[in-house]
């Protein structure tokens, strides 16, 4: 009979081997639970990278992506921050259990949303930080200085979180991935289960994993 572990760390390691489902942690890639997106992103949202999800029209499934991402990260017990720029999230439309890992930040405009994102991106406790900028004035967003995104890119790159930015028009410069949601689900799919709807979503990749050379100081 093997000798019992003598330290808490050894005990945790032993338990992780015996009960792997109990010790799931972030592995650097966070699955979204949407096949087309996970395929396009080579597994899911990557820690340290910014992914922009552009909903080119209302009803193209951006909120379904969010709901599915919450469900999948809940199962993996990964913490998620949602910075809700236009305060459009509807919590009662999501199963109560799928909200327990979520920190919802109800911002009042682009300035507040970007300031809160800057804080959440540097936190290190979130597997995913979602910034929903849909519903905000495109003119205001386009006026936000490029340095804002530059700061965010650096904050995310030095941390362990993945940043998902939801927009209605391509907005984020130097983004690692940009995905376009273009068509609403067909009328026949609208009463399907969320999982089926999520699987039916199609995305177009307009920018794929561009590594940006870090400026030398």
């Amino acid at each position, binding site marked *: 009979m093997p000798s019992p572990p003598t330290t808490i760390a050894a005990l945790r390691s032993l338990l992780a081997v015996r009960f792997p489902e109990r010790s799931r942690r972030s592995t650097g890639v966070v699955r979204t639970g949407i096949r087309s997106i996970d395929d396009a992103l080579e597994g899911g949202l990557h820690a340290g990278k910014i992914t922009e999800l552009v909903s080119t029209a209302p009803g193209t499934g951006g909120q379904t992506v969010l709901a599915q991402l919450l469900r999948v990260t809940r199962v993996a017990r990964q913490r998620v921050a949602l910075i809700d720029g236009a305060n459009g999230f509807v919590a009662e439309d999501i199963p109560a259990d799928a909200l327990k890992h979520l920190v919802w930040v109800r911002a009042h405009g682009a300035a507040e949303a970007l300031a809160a994102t800057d804080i*959440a991106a540097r936190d*290190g406790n979130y597997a995913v930080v979602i910034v929903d900028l849909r519903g905000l004035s495109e003119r205001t967003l386009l006026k936000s200085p490029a340095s804002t995104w530059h700061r965010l890119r650096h904050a995310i790159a030095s941390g362990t979180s993945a940043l998902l930015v939801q927009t209605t028009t391509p907005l984020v410069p130097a983004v690692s991935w940009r995905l376009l949601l273009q068509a609403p689900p067909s009328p026949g799919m609208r009463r399907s289960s969320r999982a089926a709807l999520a699987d039916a979503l199609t995305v177009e990749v307009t920018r794929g994993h561009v590594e940006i050379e870090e400026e030398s100081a």
Partner: protein
Amino acid sequence: MNYAVVLAPDFALQAVLRNDPALFGKPVALAEGEGRKAQLSQVSVEAFTVAPGLAVALAMARCPGLLIRPRDPTAESEANRVLLAAAFTLSPRVEATSDGCCTVDLQGAEAGPTEERMHEAVAELAASGLRVRIGAGATPLLATYAAHRGEPVLVVRAATDFLAPLSIDAAQPTPTQAAVLHGWGIKTLGQFTALPKAEIARRLGTEGVALWERATGETMRVLRHVEPVKTFAAEWVYDPPVESLEPLLFRLRRYAERVALELRGAGYVAEQLTLTLFLEDETDQGRDFRLPEPSANLDGWMRILQAHLDTVQTAARVIGVRLTAKHARPPLKQDGLFDIGLRDPAAFWENLARMGAIVGDHCVGTPTVLDSWQPDSVVLEKPAESVPAPEPEPMHPPRGLTLRRFRPPWPARLAFLENRPVTVDADHTRHEVLAARGPFRSSGSWWDPTKNWMMDVWHIEVSSGAVYQVVQTPQGWCVEGVLD
């Protein structure tokens, strides 16, 4: 080690310097007296060419860049409070002995941790702009001797060895006694205490005995304890008023340091901070900051307050500020073996409060849906320390697209044909209705006339293929959101 003395040398000067960042690193002196009689009372180390007692005019001639300042009673009072707050972190029995000097009764305290705490107090006070020395010994007097020689902390364990080489002036003899002792060739306390006490009494009388007892460091006295503070607040004024963030933050940090020290000394943490700005136009602007994880960490407080102040615009200049901390006992918790906790709990709670400072405390948290069908029946609660294990998937998983709500909803006008909507006017656009489902009627709280509600909900597909949720309430029609 029964007593400790916390001593701030050149206290009045330090009190002035810590309040004015423009004086850092410059030759500064405090002056007392008026006109030609004005002379320097305390000088900073940078003004090494002048000394206390020098006439101001002469000092200015010797040190052309010398900055002369008067004493500042308000700054001294605040610095005394900081000193007391630091002393209370050593023991709850503290005497405010004099300006810049506190005596702490350490009887019953463990020597090792207390000495460590003394070093921490010195560092905290240094960060707060007060350079102090701490001495500890068996009596208050011995602790005072040690404090004058602490670099920065000196604990006297062998009193005789410590006192022997000290100058006889340390025992503060009167001029007459000093002359007599000088005549005897006595220069140190050790030489003086080597003389028999009875012979000193016979030659120098009762005053001589008192001096001899002071020289042995054995003189005892009863401390006049001060009450620890029960409200944790600071209020100060700016003269002249400030209009930029930097000077405001500098003083805010100074006062917040004191409040945090007072909290820690009393064994409390802050669960809420309240910051009030008093403006030149006689209005004020207040804001509460709920700390999700109560703490007395100054840096964390400052990051939260700065996150708020960065976004604040006032109609007039700031003439004063009040900072209040609502105290609470530190939370106690035990992590579970299987918990997937926070990687950096301190950063998590602090960042939560910082985001709350930007968007509002009530706008950050984990959503919990209330037991109601009324839309938006959600409260935001403090996030869990660890993400709990997920519950089994529901028997009937959710179906259909997810609603994204427009807050506020868009006012709308609907045209109906045979009880079915045919056009929707909203957001300055007319949409042709391709298909519509509804109405789905819901209502609640009918028993409470102030809270009852009722609405008819339609799901309307427009030509772009998007499905909007349109509702009719007693107030009229509006587009509530889009199924996305």
